[in-house]
């Protein structure tokens, strides 16, 4: 069945062409709207032409599958499939798409550039093609969501109109929500089947139906299908979506978007059907939608609304047919997909012409158009007759098939009456609303107070309608010869089983189905004749305005969401930290409660290093410093100094435990941080009021104690539990693998270079954040301190400046030295960057900020970018030697002056780190310096 032909590559190519073509109309737009239309049409035509060679294969009963591996471990492959069902939909999507492109060119006002419209239309078309040509179900869901998004944009094409925006949002919420349900359903389906490839899912059909998850899968998938196909009770978005321009309605709401739902039913028919759950849920929803839609259609005064409800009704019919799950009903369902697409697209286009010519869609005003536009009227009447199921037209054939199935179906009740009666009622209603459309619009007296004087539309605007109506007639009269093959191929692919014997012809002899058709026609006309009574009766029924209801629900939910958000996200940093800590505490506590193994292992008492007096003093100093900082945080200067003490003791601890790299880094970080904090303190108010209530202090103390105690426990557990580390690997591999004997630095720039790249990227982003926050900020520094004393106005002390200037080259030499030796001895780009930063900070402190500013670069973001480019660039270089990203190379060199030196390519990476660090430090320094510039001048 599955064939890999030499032309199979055309399948992904066609889809690629469609997606690539999305931008063409936008590019063509500047050369006029005509070129934009031609570009859109060309993209569709080329896609179709690429697929046509494969059609012959498909018709001969083969399925073309093109798998392209992408993420095979997750079951996500770009797998494409063309079978009979896909072929039918491809022809509908591209064929009707071409007609819509032509139609829209005349329909949309001349002032519209059309580039955006056609681009969106193509995007939608490509996504629809993606749905019907996907072998991988996850890929299909992705395309499904793209159709939801692009249809949102298409419905809201007239975005200046409030109605359009509301309607678009409603369609997006309903179909997008259904798409999420579908995603969940497909994931479950793939889990159960063990694959997301449609062929394998179909092969696992029995397994899936026997699985306990089957009801859930079915519900979720049906939610997706029913929301998309506007089935009751999710139908309400479709009538509102009539706010879209008519070409969009003709395309989305007849042939494509809403058909995606029934396509899904057809696609998964072999997988999910054949159970009672499927039979009952799908056919019941379909039947309700069929009658409800037809009933509502009768009462629309807006003829586009009438068509929308009739679409809902016909989609219900198709759903019902798939629900009945007999082979013949599936054939009828597929046949009706074709017929409905043809007559409904032509009706929407005709309705668009009338709307375009009359300026209104109200059937109480649009009357008697037959005299004014006879050709359009004739076309529309033929299409409407097809919709009603009049013989010799295509709608009659599939409706007849439906009636036959309704009579033959024996699943529901013993008397075999419910379904035939239901079908006849639906038939009567369909005839009645079709009659209303024909009679009200084209006859029924003269037009009432039209905004425009209607006449025949431009010649080419009518061509798409003429083609479609011609198809109605051809299919209606010569069904077997015109669509026999297409229908057989598509129905065969849907069933994945041999086709039942059927005969596509108009005359089946006198049988019950014919009687039902006659009853429907006569009853429908009679019902329409009694319309005045009916309308009066209907007006007395409580009206259910889905639009305002949905909108109210939407507003309510949005208001609740913003209330929750306002509570969570009120801009208070204290609250964020409190929430974060509370969450960590609860979640961490729960996790360690659930998983006691960590704490079990930890308290078994593995030996720890002995505690000496120096360590005790250091620990005490740190603890005192931390407690002091907390208690004295109202006296900011003192608090900052205490933080400095903590930092210094931490770096001494690193020295004690033989981590000179860390000690060096910690020391220089400490200096930079404290200086920058002191500079920032200058702008803060001199005194801090007491802001926290006692209750809040209590809460904070509890949270802090919990987090601190938890961290202490976790650290203790980690330090005392026996575990094997990968340190040995690093120690062994440092020289042979990384070319450096300083393991810390080799880890940073080589073994875990990707981590470091991420870290410096974060650092650069933080610096950019500071830049964004401070760049335009100008603060007035306080005139005097808390005791009312003026700030000193004296110039910077000459003494200091003179002494600091010779220190600069010295400090820079030190930083170069630390940088170069980093790979083998304590040092490296990070420390070197900090040392340079400290040296430059010192200069600006000694000489004043303006002194430093005149001598340093003005803008630091480019320097940040340069640093990142160095680090990432050297990583990319390894690709040219076909090695993984960030592979290092090293070698031994003899350089003049420096002597023998071991150089590794990571030194460039380290240079990137150095540049980012220097730029970050200086950026914050200069931004802080610029803060009070306005005041100085």
């Amino acid at each position, binding site marked *: 069945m599955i064939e890999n032909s030499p032309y199979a590559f055309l399948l992904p190519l066609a889809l690629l062409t469609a997606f690539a073509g999305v931008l063409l109309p936008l590019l063509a737009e500047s050369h006029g709207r005509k070129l934009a239309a031609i570009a859109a049409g060309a993209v569709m035509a080329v896609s179709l032409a690429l697929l046509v060679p494969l059609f012959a294969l498909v018709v001969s009963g083969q399925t073309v599958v093109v798998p392209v591996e992408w993420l095979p471990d997750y079951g996500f492959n770009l797998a494409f499939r063309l079978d009979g069902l896909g072929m039918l939909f491809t022809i509908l999507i591209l064929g009707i798409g071409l007609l819509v492109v032509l139609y829209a060119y005349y329909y949309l006002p001349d002032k519209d550039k059309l580039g955006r419209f056609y681009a969106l239309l193509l995007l939608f078309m490509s996504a629809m093609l993606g749905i019907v040509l996907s072998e991988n179900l996850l890929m299909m869901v992705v395309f499904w969501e793209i159709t939801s998004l692009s249809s949102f944009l298409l419905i809201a094409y007239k975005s200046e109109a409030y109605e359009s925006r509301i309607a678009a949002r409603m369609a997006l919420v309903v179909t997008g929500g259904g798409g999420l349900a579908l995603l969940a359903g497909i994931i479950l389906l793939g889990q159960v089947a063990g694959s997301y490839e449609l062929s394998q899912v179909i092969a696992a059909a029995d397994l899936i139906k026997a699985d306990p998850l089957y009801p859930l899968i079915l519900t979720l998938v049906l939610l997706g299908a029913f929301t998309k196909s506007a089935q009751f009770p999710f139908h309400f978005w479709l009538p509102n979506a009539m706010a879209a321009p008519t070409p969009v309605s003709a395309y989305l709401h007849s042939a494509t978007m809403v058909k995606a739902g029934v396509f899904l039913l057809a696609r998964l028919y072999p997988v999910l059907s054949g159970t009672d759950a499927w039979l009952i849920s799908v056919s019941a929803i379909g039947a309700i939608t069929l009658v409800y839609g037809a009933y509502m259609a009768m009462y629309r005064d807006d003829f586009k609304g009438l068509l929308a409800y009739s679409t809902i009704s016909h989609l219900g019919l198709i759903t019902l047919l798939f629900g009945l799950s007999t082979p013949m009903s599936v054939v009828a369902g597929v046949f009706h997909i074709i017929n409905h697409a043809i007559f409904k697209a032509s009706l929407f286009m005709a309705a668009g012409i009338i709307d375009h010519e009359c300026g209104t869609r109200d059937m109480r005003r649009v009357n008697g158009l037959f005299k004014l536009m006879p050709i359009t009227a004739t076309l529309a009447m033929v299409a409407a007759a097809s919709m009603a199921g009049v013989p010799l037209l295509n709608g009659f054939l599939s409706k007849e098939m439906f009636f036959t199935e309704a009579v033959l179906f024996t699943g529901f009740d013993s008397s075999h009456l419910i379904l035939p009666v239901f079908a006849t009622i639906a038939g009567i209603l369909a005839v009645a609303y079709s009659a209303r459309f024909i009679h009200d619009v084209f006859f029924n007296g003269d037009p009432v107070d039209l905004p425009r004087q209607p006449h025949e539309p431009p010649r080419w605007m009518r061509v798409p309608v003429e083609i479609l109506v011609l198809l109605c007639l051809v299919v209606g009269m010569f069904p077997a010869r015109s669509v026999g093959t297409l229908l057989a191929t598509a129905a065969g692919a849907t069933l994945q089983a041999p086709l039942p014997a059927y005969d596509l012809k108009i005359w089946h002899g006198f049988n019950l189905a014919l009687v039902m058709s006659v009853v429907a026609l006569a009853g429908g006309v009679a019902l329409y004749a009694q319309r005045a009574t009916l309308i009066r009766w209907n007006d007395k029924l409580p009206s259910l305005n889905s639009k305002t209801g949905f909108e109210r629900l939407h507003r309510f939910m949005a208001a609740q969401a913003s209330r929750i958000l306002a509570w969570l996200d009120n801009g208070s940093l204290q609250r964020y930290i409190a929430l974060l800590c509370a969450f960590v505490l609860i979640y961490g506590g729960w996790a360690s409660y659930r998983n006691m193994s960590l704490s079990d292992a930890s308290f078994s008492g593995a030996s720890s290093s002995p505690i000496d007096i120096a360590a005790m003093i250091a620990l005490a100093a740190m603890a005192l410093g931390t407690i002091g900082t907390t208690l004295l945080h109202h006296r900011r200067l003192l608090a900052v100094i205490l933080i400095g003490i903590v930092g210094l003791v931490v770096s001494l601890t690193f020295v004690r435990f033989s981590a000179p790299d860390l000690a060096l880094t910690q020391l220089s970080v400490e200096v930079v941080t404290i200086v920058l904090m002191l500079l920032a303190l200058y702008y803060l108010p001199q005194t801090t009021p007491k802001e926290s209530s006692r209750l809040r202090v209590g809460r904070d103390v509890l949270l802090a104690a919990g987090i601190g105690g938890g961290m202490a426990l976790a650290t203790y557990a980690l330090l005392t539990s026996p575990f094997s580390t990968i340190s040995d690997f690093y120690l062994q591999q440092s020289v042979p693998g990384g070319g450096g004997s300083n393991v810390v630095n080799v880890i940073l720039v080589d073994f875990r270079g990707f981590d470091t790249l991420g870290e410096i990227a974060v650092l650069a982003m933080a610096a950019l954040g500071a830049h964004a926050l401070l760049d335009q900020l100008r603060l007035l520094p306080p005139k005097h301190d808390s*005791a009312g*004393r003026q700030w*000193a106005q*004296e110039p910077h*002390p000459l*003494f*200091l400046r003179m*002494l600091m200037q010779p*220190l600069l080259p010295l400090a820079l030499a030190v930083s170069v030295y630390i940088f170069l030796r980093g790979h083998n001895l304590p040092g490296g780009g990070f420390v070197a960057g900090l040392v340079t930063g400290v040296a430059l900070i010192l200069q600006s402190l000694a000489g004043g900020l303006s002194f430093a500013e005149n001598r340093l670069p003005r803008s630091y973001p480019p320097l940040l970018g340069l640093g990142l480019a160095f680090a990432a660039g050297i990583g990319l270089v390894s690709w040219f030697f076909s090695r993984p990203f960030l592979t290092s190379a090293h070698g031994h060199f003899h350089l003049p002056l420096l002597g023998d030196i071991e150089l590794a390519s990571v030194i460039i990476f380290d240079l990137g780190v150095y540049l980012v660090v220097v730029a970050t430090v200086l950026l914050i320094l200069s931004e802080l310096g610029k803060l009070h510039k306005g005041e100085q001048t």
Partner: protein
Amino acid sequence: MNIWIESLLAFLILAGASFTLLGSIGLARLPDFFMRLHGPTKTTTLGVGAMVIASAIYFSVSDPGISLHEIAATLFLFITAPVSAHLLAKAALHIAQKPVSEEDRPG
């Protein structure tokens, strides 16, 4: 190690430690800001200086070669101590700290 060198080292370390202790006591006990400033700057310079010399002698004798790290340390000490004392004094003048002698002086 030679007894004379050991005696010299002991003397230097003890002298340095004593000066540092004295400086610390001075910092804690002297009556006003300007007097207290003398403690950590002048005496500490001398105390730390003595210890640095002791260190230089010790490492020059015990290890091969002459130890020169201490000269750098001394250099930085001699730069930073007066500068910080100078800045502290200027700040004190600015916020109008009064010497005790002026407070005591009648009228």
